């Protein structure tokens, strides 16, 4: 560092040259950094979106854009590998009369809670009415992210209008999506409503799968894939992220390389500046060497000069790059205008690693630029250089013409290298070869050129010629490098321009009709149904209409879907921009594939291939290859008639209208516009579509243009700087020349001539080279063009991406899952719509408040005779019903545990008229718990689902209700309960010892003085239990006694009920006792009831006044702060029992899911201090007042 002033001080003195080098490096680094940062931000945002949507899914099942048969859902849900399956119908819903669309995820809230909990909606007035949780199931309820809400400018309670088919659909904003707070625009609605209203009954677009613990996703993927029909694929969520990254990768690489050219130019400028400075300081270095500066030290310090410039440039560049990225994100969006990530609002992140890398790149550019000049300076013999006047000889020799030629020649075969993973690496290599070759060759060429210069002419011309031939050294090389990069940038601009030209021509070719009509974009919710198609065709002035259907095909898992376009095609495909065709026509349906697809799959004209259409593999013949500038992931074109025959799908997205003779386009357009509702149909002329397409083209190339412009500007500045520096270096020469009588003007002319001579020739050469290969990297920079015509950003690929945006993506989960189960999943569930037991009753009561419900529920009336076995089954006409078993189990070592399992059936009153199989008319909710004295508290778990396709349901006629692998059923030998919880599991057989015990008046059980509040209610006391209980992974046989309640009702609770206390006891003498009371806010009994069934007899119903509950001891819950009366005296009829809990803490805190806290636990019954029986006690309403309707 001692010598720093000697060298770095010199940088400061050469202010202009240093500044130019610095600016060039700053710009190069800044552009690269900006491109990188923007794409990084977009990709990470995109990936984050995918991950959120994928939630905890291990696998995702994806199909074509049109979706797949919903029958796959129960199939997959029942697969042994699958723990939870979440069906999704994604709809790109077009807002009526507006250009924008909203991605709506039609979801099943119940499975959502277990797979992608962050998507769970929150009702707008949550908390006030418990029952409103079911409002999320209403078919017109839409839940918006904050981002969507702001973008659309709506509030909760307002209505949004969408286009569905060619009609309009009103959806109510019912709440928000608190789990998605990142500014994304997304909406969630119930899948049944989505299927129904958007005309997608029976269809799904995605199924998210969560696998059972210990199942490897890769293995499960293979197994499940084998069971799926053609065109439906199982992917790992991670794959979708890669897919997205791959899609835009070529574009990103291209931009990065453009930035690299800018950086390279910067490097050349450093080179130029350093080379000239070395020339200028030649004697200075000689002197330093003479007075004892070691050669290596000199070399090192000269490198350090370059590195210092590079480092400063790198640091400034990274800062500028972030600023640029910030601006670009604000102005152009996350894809820099290319349309890959529309709808995202990425946030810039400072990445220390990447930033450091770019600083390093800047430094490397500086170092590389300084390398040759430093070496040159270090090898100069000081004795020679010290001679005065020696400066004129500029080192560097004549370049390496042969090597240069060879490298230039190598660029030709490099162009032929096929793209690797979609990246035109060969093209980049060719560019690199051109650059390197040019630089190596130019000094010799300059010298050769100089020899050809006229010997005569003006003095300045002769001097310039002599000069060029005398010193084609580093200065020339440096200038050549700068010029070469400029030429390259210019050539790329020319290339893009000529590409644009071919796109323009191509657009003309593929848009032959006079008018185009469509119902929203292809991926969206609009379409033309058959009626509308017929009406369009019948319009006066319409000659012929070619209808077009768009879909996608999944040819390979993990790769972006391929576009499928069905439209009338001439038998020989002559109306397509064909580039190849097959010979003889066979009998198979014919398809025409795009060049991109040909590249991707290697299909050849004439080949017979299989396409997954409508879930089947269909053999088709490749009749030809056509040019498609719009879809880099490939497209398949087939005749509409073939498509309709093969799929039965008769909808269309677009129509190409050819006018009849004498018809005027304007008249027909007006007639079309008034066919459907206002704004439902979009009508466009080819010219408009063309203009829009080219605008999109320009937008996607905007950054390319910008980068090129910057590279050119840096380059030109560099040329100027180089020659200025050259002039400075030759001050002495010029001074001498002026002494000799040259005017200033002559010197200027001489310099200009020297500059032109090299530059003009080089630029022309490169431009010519590139001009011949307009499509050189067709695979890379492919713009997104709207083939799906219409005044819209009908970008096939982004659409496909959006289509998948509901997908995938979640990493590092398996590790977490392996590490220890539960926490994550429990947290997920806790946010769910799941209901806890009695708390659920309140919710049911609250259902009466759901406004949409005009449903007639069956009423509970006195005098109805319960009939068995029929009444063991479900009663779906009633609002709510449960099978509720509680009891005591004995482990092999004699120690007791309590158990509880409840299956609820709920008729929501919703979806009564919805033909969707997902219509949420009936729900099943299951809740199970174990009171484990060793743990000192409850283990519990729960499930919920709608009855429909999938794995939840009930039987009428006998007890049979199930939800996944949880079930409760009555067989010939009694009841069977099966529960698989997070940290416990049991399978129990419960054998009744007598007839059902009818509660109340022969099963009519009143809950209030008002007889409307009543249920049908019977119990099965003294069930003998045997089975298996699994705790902490150990299965043990158990025996015990249990109690079963089966109760159904439509209007249960009276007003003013604060909560209730309920007991069901099996007494040792073989009798059973049930008693309950409803309390008001003061704790006074509103209603009481009790039934006693002595062993072997029928039950005796006690009058309400014969039942008394007296609390004896309270237990203070440290979690909720509630004082629970855990010890009771219960008087019923003649008996006086004291109840003692198995453990104090049998509190169930479900505030996070349902807001309720209750106590549900095993108790002993004592009489005179002696244990006389065991049973269950339930207490509610001891925390806050329970809201009931």
């Amino acid at each position, binding site marked *: 560092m*001692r*010598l720093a*002033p*000697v060298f770095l*001080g*010199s940088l*400061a*003195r050469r202010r202009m040259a240093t500044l130019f080098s610095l600016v060039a490096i700053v710009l190069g680094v800044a552009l690269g950094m900006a491109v990188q940062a923007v794409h990084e931000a977009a990709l990470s945002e995109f990936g984050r979106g995918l991950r959120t949507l994928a939630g905890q899914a291990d696998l995702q099942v994806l199909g074509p854009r049109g979706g797949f048969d919903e029958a796959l859902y129960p199939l997959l849900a029942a697969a042994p590998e699958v723990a939870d399956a979440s069906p999704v119908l994604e709809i790109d819903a077009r807002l009526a009369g507006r250009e924008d669309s909203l991605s709506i995820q039609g979801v099943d809230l119940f499975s959502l809670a277990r797979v992608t909990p962050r998507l769970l909606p929150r009702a707008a007035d949550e908390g006030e009415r418990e029952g409103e949780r079911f409002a999320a199931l209403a078919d017109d309820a839409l839940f918006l992210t904050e981002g969507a809400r702001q973008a659309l400018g709506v509030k909760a309670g307002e209505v949004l209008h969408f286009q569905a088919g060619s009609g309009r659909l009103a959806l109510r904003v019912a709440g928000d999506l608190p789990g998605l707070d990142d500014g994304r625009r997304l909406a969630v609605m119930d899948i049944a409503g989505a299927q129904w209203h958007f005309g997608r009954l029976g269809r799904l677009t995605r199924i998210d799968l969560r696998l059972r613990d210990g199942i490897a996703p890769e293995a499960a993927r293979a197994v499940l894939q084998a069971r799926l029909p053609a065109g439906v694929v199982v992917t790992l969520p991670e794959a979708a992220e890669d897919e997205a990254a791959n899609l835009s990768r070529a574009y990103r690489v291209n931009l990065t390389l453009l930035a690299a050219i800018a950086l390279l130019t910067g490097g050349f400028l450093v080179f130029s500046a350093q080379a000239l400075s070395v020339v200028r300081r030649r*004697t*200075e270095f000689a*002197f330093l*060497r*003479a*007075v*004892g*500066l*070691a*050669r*290596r030290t000199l070399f090192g310090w000269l490198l350090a000069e370059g590195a210092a410039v590079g480092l400063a440039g790198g640091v400034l560049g990274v800062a500028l790059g972030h600023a640029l990225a910030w601006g670009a994100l604000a102005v152009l969006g996350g894809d820099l205008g290319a349309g890959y990530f529309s709808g995202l609002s990425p946030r810039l992140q400072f990445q220390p690693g990447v930033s450091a890398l770019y600083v390093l790149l800047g430094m490397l550019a500086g170092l590389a630029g300084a390398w040759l000049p430093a070496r040159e300076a270090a090898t100069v*013999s*000081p*004795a020679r250089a*010290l*001679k*005065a006047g020696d400066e004129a000889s500029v080192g560097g020799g004549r370049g390496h013409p042969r090597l240069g030629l060879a490298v230039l020649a190598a660029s030709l075969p490099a162009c032929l290298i096929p793209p690797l993973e979609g990246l035109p690496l060969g093209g980049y290599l060719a560019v690199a070869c051109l650059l390197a070759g040019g630089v190596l060759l130019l000094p010799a060429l300059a010298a050769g050129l100089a020899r050809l210069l006229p010997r005569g002419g003006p003095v300045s011309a002769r001097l310039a010629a002599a000069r060029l031939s005398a010193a084609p050294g580093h200065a020339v090389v440096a200038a050549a490098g700068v010029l070469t990069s400029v030429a390259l940038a210019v050539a790329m601009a020319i290339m893009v321009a000529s590409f644009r030209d071919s796109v323009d021509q191509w657009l003309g070719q593929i848009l032959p009709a006079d008018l185009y009509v469509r119902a929203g974009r292809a991926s969206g919710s609009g379409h033309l149904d058959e009626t509308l198609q017929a009406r369009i065709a019948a319009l006066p002035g319409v000659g012929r209409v070619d209808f077009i259907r768009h879909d996608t095909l999944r040819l390979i898992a993990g790769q972006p879907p391929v576009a499928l376009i069905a439209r009338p095609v001439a038998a020989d495909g002559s109306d397509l921009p064909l580039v190849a065709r097959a010979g003889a026509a066979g009998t198979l349906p014919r398809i025409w594939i795009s060049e991109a697809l040909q590249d991707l799959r290697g299909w050849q004209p004439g080949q017979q291939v299989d396409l997954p259409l409508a879930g089947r593999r269909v053999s088709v013949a490749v009749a030809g290859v056509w040019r498609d500038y719009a879809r880099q992931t490939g497209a398949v074109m087939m005749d509409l008639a073939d498509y309709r025959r093969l799929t039965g799908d008769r909808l269309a997205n677009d129509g190409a209208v050819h006018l009849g003779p004498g018809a005027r386009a304007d008249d027909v357009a007006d007639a079309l516009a008034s066919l459907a509702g206002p704004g439902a149909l979009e009508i466009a002329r080819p010219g408009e579509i063309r203009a829009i397409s080219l605008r999109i083209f320009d937008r996607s190339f905007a950054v390319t243009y910008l980068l090129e412009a910057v590279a050119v500007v840096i380059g030109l500045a560099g040329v100027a700087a180089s020659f200025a520096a050259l002039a400075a270096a030759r001050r002495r020469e010029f001074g001498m020349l002026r002494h000799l009588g040259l005017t200033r003007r002559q010197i200027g002319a001489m310099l200009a001539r020297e500059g032109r001579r090299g530059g003009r020739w080089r630029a022309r050469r490169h431009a010519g080279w590139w001009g011949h290969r307009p499509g050189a990297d067709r695979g890379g920079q492919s713009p997104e063009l709207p083939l799906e015509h219409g005044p819209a950003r009908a970008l096939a690929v982004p659409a496909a991406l959006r289509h998948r945006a509901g997908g995938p993506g979640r990493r590092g989960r398996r590790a977490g899952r392996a590490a220890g189960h539960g926490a994550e999943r429990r947290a997920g569930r806790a946010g769910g719509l799941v209901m806890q037991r009695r708390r659920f009753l309140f919710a049911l009561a609250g259902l009466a408040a759901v406004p949409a419900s005009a449903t007639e529920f069956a009423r509970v009336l006195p005098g109805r005779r319960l009939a068995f076995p029929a009444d063991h089954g479900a009663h779906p006409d009633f609002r709510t019903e449960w099978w509720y078993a509680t009891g005591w189990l004995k482990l092999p070592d004699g120690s007791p545990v309590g158990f509880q399992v409840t299956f609820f059936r709920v008729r929501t009153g919703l979806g009564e008229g919805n033909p969707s199989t997902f219509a949420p008319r009936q729900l099943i909710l299951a809740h199970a718990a174990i009171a484990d004295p060793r743990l000192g508290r409850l283990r519990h778990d729960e499930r919920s689902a709608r009855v429909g396709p999938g794995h939840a349901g009930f039987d009428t006629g006998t007890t049979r209700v199930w939800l996944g692998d949880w079930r409760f059923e009555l067989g010939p030998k009694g009841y069977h309960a099966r529960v698989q919880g997070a940290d416990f599991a049991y399978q129990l057989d419960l054998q009744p010892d007598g007839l059902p015990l009818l509660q109340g008046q022969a099963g009519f059980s009143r809950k209030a003085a008002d007889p409307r509040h009543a249920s049908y209610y019977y119990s099965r006391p003294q069930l003998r239990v045997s089975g298996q209980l699994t705790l902490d992974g150990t299965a043990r046989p158990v025996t015990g006694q249990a109690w079963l309640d089966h109760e159904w009702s439509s209007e249960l609770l009276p007003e003013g009920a604060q909560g209730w206390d309920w007991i069901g006891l099996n007494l040792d003498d073989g009798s059973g006792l049930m008693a309950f009371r409803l309390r008001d806010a003061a704790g006074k009994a509103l209603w009481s009831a009790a039934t006693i069934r002595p062993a072997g007899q029928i039950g005796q119903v006690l009058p309400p006044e014969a039942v008394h509950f007296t609390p004896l001891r309270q237990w203070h819950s440290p979690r909720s702060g509630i004082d629970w009366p855990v010890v009771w005296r219960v008087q019923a009829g003649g008996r006086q029992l004291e109840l003692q809990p198995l453990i104090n803490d049998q509190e169930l805190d479900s505030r996070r899911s349902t807001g309720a806290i209750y106590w549900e636990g095993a108790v002993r019954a004592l009489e005179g201090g002696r244990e006389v029986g065991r049973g269950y006690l339930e207490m509610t309403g001891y925390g806050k007042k329970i809201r009931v309707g």
Partner: protein
Amino acid sequence: MLEIEKLSRHFNGRTVLRDVSLQLKPGEYVAIVGESGVGKSTLLNLVAGLDRPDGGRLCLDGEDYGRLDEDALTRLRRDKLGFVFQAFHVLPHLTVGQNVALPLWLQGLDAAAAAAPARQLLDAVGLAERADSWPRELSGGEMQRVAIARALVHRPRLVLADEPTGNLDPANGNKVLHLLATRIREAGAIGILVTHSLEAAATADRVLRLTPEGLCG
């Protein structure tokens, strides 16, 4: 003690120096004169270790340095030699003081340690108050005085001056020559002054003439 023995140098087959011999003791200051192109600078470059002899021997204080490698020669120049050139070679982006301190920096002294000796030498050449000036603010004579200070600041055993007054007017030249002679004597170094001017040579203790035949007193 500098011993030059039968030194010879050819360029492209042309002999410029043949069998030149010379011995100088510490404190001795000689001038070498001769026609332009006779080989004075060539001889000085050989002595300075900037060029390699084709024959003969070069010894400084008993060390034969004619065959040393490049790095060793560089170290020798750094530690034991001082130079004064016709073209000053005062670095424009260093201050006068820094220029004088440069040889000490090269020896590894830091700026603070080098500042005092540099100032002392500047004082000796009468430029003490110009230490913080920039070279562009100096006249030619002052620049050469800076160069003299720089040539002596690290106490070299041998000081070589090649036409130090070539770029100066006679008055300034004289002053510089006397200063150089005084400083070399004071430092007890061996001094060689190469010049084509007899008048300049007269400031040395001894004048030698270089002819194609060799050195003669």
